[in-house]
């Protein structure tokens, strides 16, 4: 099913509800290999494309959800702006070229990149939406201005909902000016704990870094990097601040090509190779404990240690390590058998799961979107 507009989406969902069938929502399919195969019908939203309104001075962009992420990013870049949460395309993580990811898919999957550490995630930039709930009813939530507290903040629920609440048909995002210049400063040879301590020192200072990440030794020595963005004089002053804080660690600036490569690696996860891939959110200082507990062959820290990407096959051990570190683990990539047996999303505490189920029923009482793809409680 490929609806062309909101009316088609509503009709398709209403029909599925009446027929008692379940629908998997899809944009460009760049994340189609996340979660288990369900055999459910796919509602393909990739024909809902186009920019509805973009006024750079208002910092607001309204777009249809099937619009390719690359098009949205090119549009805002043409006005010196950006999606500050630094979304990325999952294609390369699954060995496919980038380009398929849509803005709706980015929102539904809560995809935020390295700058999420300081600029906020998708959740902090989705201002409003039009959507269709599991009853097949169209509704709007939020608004098209940057500051709004009118009614419940339902757009927050759409971010990271993985198509389990509603089908978005129009989204309004906050956009921000792109920094005019950028600098990446690195130190070599730190172990996980020392890397997190070094990143925390910078984040606790007035250096105002935008991103902080760490790559362990592999092809080269371990590299701990912070990225600064902004106006030239500001980046220069803050670079000096970082250099002073890291004085004893022999910091150096990465040239543009090396810096681009480092941050690109964090988006497409090339250094992690293939294998079962996990995404683990913890407090930043707990990242080293996760690595110590699992001793993975390959791993990366983003978000100053608060996001660990690693490859490991023992799902129980990964989930236990994430919980022990005060966080949660998502199974991003794995073989079909593992994905069949292991829910992609980290299981919730029973009472939170019960509340989440009631919230889902508030959007989708008959379970049209309950495909069981991401959690196994459905």
């Amino acid at each position: 099913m490929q609806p062309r507009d909101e009316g088609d989406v509503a009709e398709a969902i209403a029909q599925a509800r009446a027929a008692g069938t379940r629908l998997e929502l899809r944009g460009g399919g760049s994340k189609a290999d996340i979660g288990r195969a369900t055999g459910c019908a796919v509602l393909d939203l990739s024909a809902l494309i186009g920019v509805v309104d973009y006024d750079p001075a208002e910092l607001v962009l309204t777009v249809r959800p099937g619009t390719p992420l690359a098009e949205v990013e090119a549009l805002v870049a043409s006005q010196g702006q950006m999606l500050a949460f630094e979304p990325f395309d999952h294609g390369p993580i699954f060995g496919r070229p980038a380009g398929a990811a849509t803005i709706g898919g980015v929102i539904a999957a809560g995809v935020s990149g390295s700058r999420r550490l300081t600029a906020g995630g998708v959740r902090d930039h989705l201002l409003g939406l039009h959507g269709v709930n599991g009853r097949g009813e169209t509704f709007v939530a939020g608004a098209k201005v940057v500051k709004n507290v009118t009614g419940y903040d339902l757009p927050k629920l759409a971010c990271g909902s993985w198509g389990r609440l509603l089908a978005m048909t129009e989204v309004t995002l906050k956009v921000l000016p792109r920094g005019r210049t950028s600098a990446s400063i690195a130190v070599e040879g730190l172990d996980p704990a020392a890397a997190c301590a070094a990143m925390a020192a910078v984040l606790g200072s007035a250096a105002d870094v935008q991103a902080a990440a760490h790559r362990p030794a592999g092809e080269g020595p371990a590299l701990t990097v912070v990225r600064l963005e902004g106006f030239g004089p500001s980046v220069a002053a803050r670079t000096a601040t970082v250099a002073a804080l890291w004085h004893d660690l022999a910091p150096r600036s990465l040239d543009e090509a090396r810096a681009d490569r480092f941050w690109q690696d964090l988006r497409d996860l090339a250094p992690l190779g293939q294998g079962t891939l996990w995404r683990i959110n913890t407090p930043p200082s707990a990242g080293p404990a996760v690595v110590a507990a699992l001793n993975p062959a390959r791993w990366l820290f983003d978000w100053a240690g608060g996001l660990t990407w690693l490859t490991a096959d023992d799902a129980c051990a990964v989930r236990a390590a994430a919980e022990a570190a005060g966080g949660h683990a998502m199974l991003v990539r794995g073989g079909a058998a593992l994905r069949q047996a292991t829910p992609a999303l980290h299981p919730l505490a029973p009472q939170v799961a019960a509340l989440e189920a009631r919230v889902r029923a508030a959007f989708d009482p008959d379970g049209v979107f309950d495909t069981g793809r991401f959690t196994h409680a459905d």
Partner: protein
Amino acid sequence: MSLVMPAPDSRVLDRRAAIVAALCAIVPGEGVIDEPRRLKVYESDGLTAYRQPPMVVVLPETVEQVSAVLAYCHAHGIRVVPRGAGTSLSGGALPLVDAVLLGMAKFNRILSVDYADRVAVVQPGVTNLAVTEAVSPRGFYYAPDPSSQIACTIGGNVAENSGGVHCLKYGLTTNNVLALQVVLIDGTVLRLGGGHLDAAGLDLVGLMVGSEGLLGVVTEVTVRILPRPETARALLIGFATVEGAGQCVADVIGAGIVPAGMEMMDRPAIHAAEAFVHAGYPLDVEALLIVELDGPAAECDHLVGEIAAIATRNGATTCRAAADEAERMRFWAGRKAAFPAVGRLAPDYYCMDGTIPRRRLPEVLARMRVLSEDYGLGVANVFHAGDGNLHPLILYDANRPGELARAEAFGADILRLCVEVGGVLTGEHGVGVEKRELMPVMFAAADLDQQLRVKAAFDPPSLLNPGKMFPLLHRCAEQGRVHIHGGALPHPDLPRF
């Protein structure tokens, strides 16, 4: 009180003595207030036009007590109104005659601060400013800074998703909260979110923030803290026209600058503020901008120059950068005193809070002037110009018969105008009782129904903070917004309050 609130439940009122006794058993000592004289203290919040003493006040000290109070009220069908410091400007904490007022003031401890992870875990009764004070010796602060920050509590900030003058750059409460402990109406205690970014499941923390006390009672909040910027600089810029000031704001954003704060005042607000605090504001301008920059000195110096050039290009008649910290504070003194300053122009004022697309500002102010003449009431405007959040202050005299009603009608017309030009009813004060009946101006029935279903997922019997945020059914029906056919309510599954 002219405001219509949910009809009191006589079965609850008849049992008042038994309810007080039960609450005393849960919260011993001084934790229950039922004397009429002492209940009067709680009869209103920051929206003082409406007053109603509660049936009883309970001031729990532990999460277990909060849970037990809510479970008791749930079991007995008793309404509950949560309250922090009672500074809401939208009547969010307005009591009900048949409700328990659940005061969270005794939850006033900062539980932990983690400087490496840059988070603080605080109880909801801690004031906004106290969080900053607790972490400032280490050079940190809590970014959201609502104007009531000396008094307002973090729990109230979570309920209202409070902002402040710095939220264009640093976000509202929702962008600065990582985790909550919440008690549901049935007494269930939950932890939502954690010390990490992004939730494992649905973003229920994001839903709770700004839910105006209708979904649950917050008993613990994990907030992000930030290192304090090295320096702050401010510019004071006057314009002969509102259009010039508006274009200057657009051009600053267009130049890639996100100031820490960007405040605009119109002529009546400028004159009132200057007469009150003698901030040195120019009096021959139609609009005044205060633009604040923060960060490293090198950045601030650079941007002061850029903004001065943009201001000149837009026909600024005056443009002054504060020479020192004392002058910067003087620039702000006028803006911060704008409300009381305007308050000297009339016996009463009514503060509105809409957001508009900034480009519509000149038109909105012009139409507001026409409304002002039609209603025969003055209006002064202060404006968080960076994010389009308008605070019209309507001048009236409550002692003159009918004038409060006229001020309210004028305010409602202003908010309708905000929605008409593509904006919203409230940018930071919340809907509360104040803007409840205007919700259908912004949302269709299907939109409100979706929100009501979410409410029912948390609080099926609708006992938490009834009469807030959503229009009351009969008013709705009178206005033709709910169509009843053959006596059957649409969506009979929905609670209506």
